[in-house]
């Protein structure tokens, strides 16, 4: 008798992993877009941190131009980190995460879709506004392609690694500061290669090598981070 039910399920057209990826991406984007105030928070944060550098160090253009690659990358990194905590938290609080873990579909599909949605509204958005803010730090025009390309390839890795921290701390009431502690040391290689790419672009050196290194980090992140995120989510929900 029970087999009849199962059979009914298998005869129906089912939504495959690809459909699930698109559905999850759409859902997460929709959720973020309906909460507009939180949507722009990383960008405002990015702008504010950048404002602190001239105020805290020196408004002298030559000096700021030298500082700009590092400052922009550090600010982008912190802005990504800031938005990381909410990645799985609402799903954890309202029980969607349990349903997600009980899906027979591969978990990494959903995880990748969620991280991609997060990146589109943090990393990608930061990449797009970065040139405008870079002008405020007197970054030479030659540095702009390097800045945008390095952010474009580097920030997805930040989202992937940050998601591991978010998944590990999602069961805790206050995960915010802890995430930074767990994730910041892991961000260092991306910071180093990203900043170097911008510096190379400013001085007119070829960018390819740096971007390739950032790309390699991204490939590694895409391959391994979803595994760690999935395991961390199962552990957090189980606990």
């Amino acid at each position, binding site marked *: 008798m029970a087999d009849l039910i199962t059979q009914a399920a298998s005869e129906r057209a089912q939504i495959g992993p690809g459909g699930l990826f698109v559905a999850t991406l759409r859902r997460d984007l929709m959720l973020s877009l309906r909460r507009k105030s939180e949507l722009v928070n990383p960008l405002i944060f990015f702008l504010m941190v950048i404002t602190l550098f001239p105020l805290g160090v020196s408004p002298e253009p030559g000096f700021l131009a030298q500082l700009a690659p590092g400052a922009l990358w550090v600010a982008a990194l912190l802005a990504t980190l800031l938005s990381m905590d909410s990645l799985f938290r609402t799903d954890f609080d309202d029980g969607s995460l349990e349903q997600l873990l009980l899906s027979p579909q591969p978990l990494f599909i959903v995880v990748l879709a969620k991280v991609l949605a997060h990146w589109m509204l943090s990393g990608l958005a930061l990449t797009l506004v970065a040139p405008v803010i870079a002008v405020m730090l007197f970054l030479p025009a030659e540095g702009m392609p390097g800045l945008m390309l390095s952010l474009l390839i580097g920030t997805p890795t930040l989202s992937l690694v940050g998601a*591991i921290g978010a998944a590990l701390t999602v069961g805790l009431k206050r995960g915010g500061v*802890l995430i930074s*502690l*767990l994730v*910041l040391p892991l961000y*260092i*290689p991306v910071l180093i290669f990203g900043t*170097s790419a911008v510096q190379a672009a400013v001085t007119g050196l070829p960018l390819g090598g740096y971007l390739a290194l950032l790309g390699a980090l991204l490939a590694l992140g895409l391959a391994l981070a979803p595994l760690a995120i999935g*395991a*961390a989510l199962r552990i957090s929900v189980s606990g």
Partner: protein
Amino acid sequence: MADSKWMPRWFYQLASPRWCYQICGKLLPWFTVAALALLIGGTLWALIFAPADYQQGNSFRIIYLHVPSAILAQSCYMLMAVAGAIGLIWKMKVADMVAKACAPIGASLAVLALLTGAIWGKPTWGSWWVWDARLTSMLILFFLYLGVMALNSAIESESTAAQATAVLALVGLVNIPIIKYSVEWWNTLHQPATFKLTEKPAMPAEMWVPLLVMVIGFYAFFAVTLMMRLRNEILRRERRAGWVKELLLSK
């Protein structure tokens, strides 16, 4: 357990906290004696008999503390991650306890490496801190330890904490080579190579043999502290088990 067929028997014996507690108790005196002998012998040798460096004079002698603690800090992270993975995969409690016991030891060793590096830096570079590649990597390793310890203490349920920490330690283990490489590369980009605390191209035997003795001594000392912490942790977690009650009553 479904996958018990191919695992050797001692592996499962090790999984028993009681057996592990007893074997650690038996090994402890031996390791203590070895650690004391090696560390005292090595220190005397290093401070008195090893020749002074022709460039750095006597200040180089701090490598006899710095290098072993740096090596141990790294090995300890690896042990922590591997133990965590074993705990994660085979649900072995003792492995979780080993991983938990490793973190504070590793963090202290990293601090020792950083302090000795700073002390060495003062006469050599003229400042307490230099963004040297090795010191920077060690600092980041220390941060990784701090993250592991913070996560472990933030999660109340012990088994959840152990599992989450194991995942983090494994992620860190994958990242350590990348961090090391990127920091070294960053370092060569920003400052020309000056004195390196280690990496002597040709260190004479009278210099490196005591260093080797010290490294082995540190390993023995590490084993002693690890076993002592492990025994404590076993007693704490198994406090309601019959054998622990018997053990405490018999004393």
